Every structure is written in structure tokens, then in C-alpha cells.
């Protein structure tokens, strides 16, 4: 996709977007509502027409090709199975349009249903199966026509948490098994980071960063990415040279080309560690634990430093040593940090 733009009246949904998906790759587009991720997917599917830009698939320009001729499989958020057809008939639908013989259709449909572990439900109607099963049937239907690209428009958002996690892993397994180029749109960071080869974080119609999940999380390209993906502590600091001094700690800058002066350092909770404060003296990194949230293997501890609240993410065993009300001293690990011009606080989630 090159230079794609799309407006809805005065609202700019996509602003000169460039995106290249390699063959066999799974790219997840992540961003808040209205960022343009679904518009990108719908333009690729041909369900909407771009105001400007080009779309090439396998070297062929398909920018102005009708949706029915783009050879793409699509899975929608919900309610996309045809209610009047059985599961088997739903999966065969695209093959029937391509005039496959009855034997070929049935064989292919059976293969796809076995791929998604639903061969035993072939004769059921959509309303007779669960939401997670419906989405698996939708996936089988999309794959049955052997599309060039698989498009997934928030396919898990209508499902409960446990089913979501299971189906997410299943989608990834199937995508790797089939080796199909896939564009996955979601607003859920965990989904995007868990299954994508690369994650594209979007805001206001633009791609802020396109990188492997680990890079997006630990080396965010912009303050928006740092704040949107995961939690971030925003701490006031002073930039000087290639470092920023935050409450007496000198931290290296991720981007050395930041002008000197006041700035807001974006520090991940995992970079903050706690020690019991036995001195009783106050300092820039001394505060009181006001809450501790159990997350399983880790816990999130909220510390009040007086002028700002800081989150620390620690192993639960360590966090339990600092109950609410205890005085602690913070240490910030000298990881490279981004800076922004915003106000202090915590952002994310």
C-alpha cells in the first residue's frame, strides 16, 4: 500500500499511509478507535475506495478492482456467517461461486473444518454453535478459497477473555501452517504483541511505528507508541546531551537528537525497582506504597512520591515485601528512554 489516503467529510481517516507486508507475514495494526486501522483493512479488501494511493498485491495493481475480484479472505468481528446455511455450506460458499465441483467443494470444506477442529459440527447452523466456534468457521470459510491475503478485522473482540486467548493462538498456528500473508486489526495490545511478526501502531491515520513486537514495546519510536503500548510512567526531567536526569537519576536517551531542557521521560514500570526505606528521610525517589495489584506472577505497585505517582512492576514475591503504607525508595534502571513534552503521570491501558 503506497500513499493511501481516505477522508470521511472533514475527518481524515488515512493520511498518506505506506505499508508493505512481506509474503507469509502476519502484521497486526494496533491503535485506538478512529486511528485508521480498520479503514486500512477495508481499503485493502476493496470494501471502500481510497481517495489517493495505490494497492499492489503480488506486484499487481488492484487499487480499483472490485472486492469480489481481489481474492482475499476476510474474517469480521461478528455475525458474518450466513444464518440460512449450515457450517459446511458456509465454508463451501466461496467455492460454489468459483464453480468448484460438488466433490471438490466438500473435500476442501472438510479439510478446512478439520484445520479449525470443527469437522463434527458441519451440519449445524451458525446459531447452534458458540461465538468462538463461529469465528473459527469464518476463518475456515475465508481460507477455503485459497486467498492471496487473509484479513482479520478484530475477530476476537466479541469473545470472552479465555476463548479470545485460545482462538488467538489457534489463528497464529493456522496462519503459520498455511503460510498465508495476513493483516490483523486489533485494539488489544496483548493480541498484537502475542501473534504478530510485526506490529504497526497507528494514530490519526498515520503509522507511528512498524516493528517486531519486542521493539515496539522496548524501543518505541514515538511518545504515542510508548504510552499506547503498555504502561508508562511520565517523570519530569532535564535533558542534557545524550541523557536525561530524572529525580537525580541519569538515564540514556533513546533518541540522542533531543534538544536540551525540560522534558518528560517515559519510564516503563518494569524499569522501576523498590527497596524498603529505612532512613526515614524524604528524597526525590522516596515515597509511600498506596496500592499493590496482584497480576499473577507479577504485581503492580503504585508509589506516591508526593508530586507524582509511579508504577513499578515486580515479581509478586518481591512486591509482597512492600505492602500498602510502607515507605520505599525507588531505583530506575538505566534503560534508554523516550521523552515527550506532556505532563507528568502514568499513561497506558
Amino acid at each position: 500500500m503506497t500513499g493511501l489516503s481516505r477522508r470521511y467529510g472533514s475527518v481524515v481517516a488515512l493520511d498518506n499511509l505506506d505499508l508493505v507486508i512481506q509474503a507469509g507475514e502476519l502484521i497486526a495494526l494496533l491503535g485506538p478507535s478512529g486511528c485508521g486501522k480498520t479503514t486500512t483493512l477495508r481499503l485493502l479488501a476493496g470494501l471502500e475506495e481510497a481517495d489517493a494511493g495505490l494497492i499492489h498485491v503480488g506486484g499487481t495493481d488492484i487499487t480499483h478492482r472490485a472486492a469480489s475480484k481481489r481474492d482475499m479472505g476476510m474474517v469480521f468481528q461478528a455475525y458474518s456467517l450466513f444464518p440460512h446455511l449450515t457450517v459446511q455450506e458456509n465454508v463451501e460458499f466461496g467455492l460454489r461461486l468459483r464453480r468448484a465441483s460438488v466433490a471438490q467443494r466438500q473435500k476442501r470444506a472438510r479439510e478446512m473444518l478439520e484445520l479449525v477442529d470443527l469437522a463434527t459440527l458441519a451440519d449445524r447452523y451458525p446459531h447452534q454453535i458458540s461465538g468462538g466456534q463461529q469465528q473459527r468457521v469464518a476463518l475456515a470459510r475465508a481460507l477455503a478459497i485459497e486467498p492471496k491475503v487473509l484479513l482479520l478485522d478484530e475477530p476476537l473482540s466479541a469473545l470472552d477473555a479465555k476463548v479470545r486467548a485460545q482462538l488467538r493462538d489457534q489463528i497464529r498456528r493456522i496462519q503459520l501452517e498455511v503460510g498465508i500473508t495476513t493483516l490483523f486489526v486489533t485494539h488489544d495490545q496483548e493480541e498484537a504483541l502475542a501473534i504478530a511478526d510485526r506490529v504497526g501502531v497507528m494514530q490519526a491515520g498515520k503509522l507511528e511505528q512498524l516493528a517486531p513486537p519486542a521493539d515496539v514495546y522496548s524501543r518505541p519510536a514515538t511518545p504515542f507508541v510508548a504510552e499506547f503500548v503498555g504502561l508508562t510512567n511520565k517523570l519530569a526531567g532535564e535533558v542534557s546531551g545524550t541523557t536525561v536526569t530524572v529525580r537525580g537519576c541519569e538515564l540514556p536517551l533513546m533518541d540522542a537528537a533531543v534538544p536540551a531542557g525540560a522534558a518528560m521521560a517515559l519510564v516503563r514500570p518494569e524499569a522501576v525497582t523498590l527497596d524498603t526505606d529505612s532512613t526515614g528521610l524524604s528524597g526525590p525517589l522516596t515515597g509511600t506504597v498506596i496500592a499493590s495489584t496482584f497480576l499473577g506472577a507479577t504485581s503492580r505497585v503504585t508509589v506516591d512520591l508526593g508530586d507524582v505517582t509511579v508504577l513499578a512492576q515486580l515479581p509478586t514475591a518481591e512486591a509482597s515485601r512492600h505492602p500498602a503504607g510502607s515507605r520505599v525508595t525507588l531505583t530506575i534502571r538505566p534503560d534508554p528512554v523516550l521523552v515527550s513534552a506532556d505532563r507528568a503521570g502514568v499513561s497506558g491501558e
Partner: protein
Amino acid sequence: MATIDTVPSDLTGAPLARRVSGRRTRQRRRLNAFRYITFTVFALFFLLPLLSMFRFSFEGSTPGSWSVSAWTSISSYPGLLSSIEITLELAVLTSVAMVLLVVPTMIWVRLRVAWFRRIMEFISLLPLTIPAIVLVVGLAPIYNWIEHYNVSALMLLWAYVILALPYAYRALAAGLDAVDAKTLSEAARSLGARWPTVMFKVIVPNMWQGILNALLLTVALVLGEFTVAYLLSYTTLQPALFEISRSTTNAGVLFSASAATLIFAFVLLLILSYAGRRLRRGRP
């Protein structure tokens, strides 16, 4: 023997709970009684005239006697059988024309021209607001021109399509609202379906109940329509019955013909309901 000096705390609320429960039961009983009375009054209001009509259609030559002569004489009145025949043909043609015109239009507007939907709803309601006599004044010049070509009363179907539009539109809209037409159409298109396939193989099969309801309402309207047919000088069932009532003192055949029409409409309703249930087989 032990005595209880204080009331245990978990029983202090029990008398209050019993009073509240009793009040709710009385309220529920009053509401049910109101419902039954209302239902009975309205049932009598609608059923008594119908039952009277049926009884009168079996009235003999003397009051209180029974006879089937009003039913057997339907065929003996000149023009009545042919008017019944033409009315039934009109009912079928109007229903088919309505469905063929309105269903694709509604689906197309819903999927492709969403901004036109409100305008279409307004247009569909217009026939309800225009009195039949005014409609006839507008249609008369066109039908006068048609009559020059000796075309039969079947040409009334265009006027009846307009008359039935408000009812059929609402029935079809309800059927269309029951499915997520946009998502289904996009799913079908992504699988390679063109627009005709989307409309007739994906959307229409999921709005059968709405289509059947629209057919039933259209047939019922055509069977009972009098004003437009009479003022345009066509002899369909209702104008024919009206002429019979003016020309004979024995009104029994009026009631037997009307009762037969009612029975036909009721049987049609049963058939369409059965068909709707069969089509819904396996669906929610």
C-alpha cells in the same frame, strides 16, 4: 424450659418481607385480571361481528332457520365469480409486483445508498396520508387512457402496489432489520459474490419472514379494496358485492361471499405461517 428473651436478628425483617411479597402478589393478580378483561372485551368487539356475519350467511328464508343457499348461490349471481377470479389474480400479481419492485430496492438502499433510506420511508408512508378519493382523481386520467385499449381490471395492480406500499414496506423493513445486512454482504463480496448474488442468495433468504408478511398484507388489502376499484369503474370483488347489495333484498350472498373471503385470507395466513416456519428451520 428455655425462653426466648430477644428476637433473633435474622427474623426481624421476615414480617416485612411477607407483607411486601403479599402486596406484589395482589398487584400481579390485579394486573392479570385487567389483562384478561381487556382481552375479552376486545376479542368480543372483533369476534362478535364476524360470528354474526357467519351466522347470517347460514340464515334461511325464515329468521332463526339454517340454510346453505347463500353459499350455493354465489355462483348464480352474474359477474360475482368473475369478480372473485379477477380479484384473486390481482392479489397474486400485486404481491409479486410489490416484492419484485420493493425488495431489491430496499436491499440496495440499505447497502449502497444509506442516505436515501429516510426519504424512502417517507415516500412509503405517503399512500397512507393521501385519501383514496384524491388518489383516484390523480389516477383517473391514466386509467381512462388505459381503458381505451380495453385492458382488464388487472391494470389496477399498479394502483394497488401504491396502496399496499406502506404495509409491505414496514413488513420488509422488519425482515431486513433482523439481519446484519451490511456485514453479510461484505462477507459475501469478500468471498467473490457479485451484487445480484449478494441480494438474492444471501440477503433475501434471510428475510423470508418479512417477505411472507408483506405478501399476506398485500393480499389482504387487495381482497378488501373497494374505493379505487369502484371509482375507476372496475368490477372487483368488493364493488361486485356492493352492486349486489343495491340490486337485491336478499343480503345473504353478501355475507357468504365476505365470509368466504375472510376464510381464504385466514387459510392463506396459515399457509404462509407454515411456510415461514419451514423456511426458518434450523435458524434462530
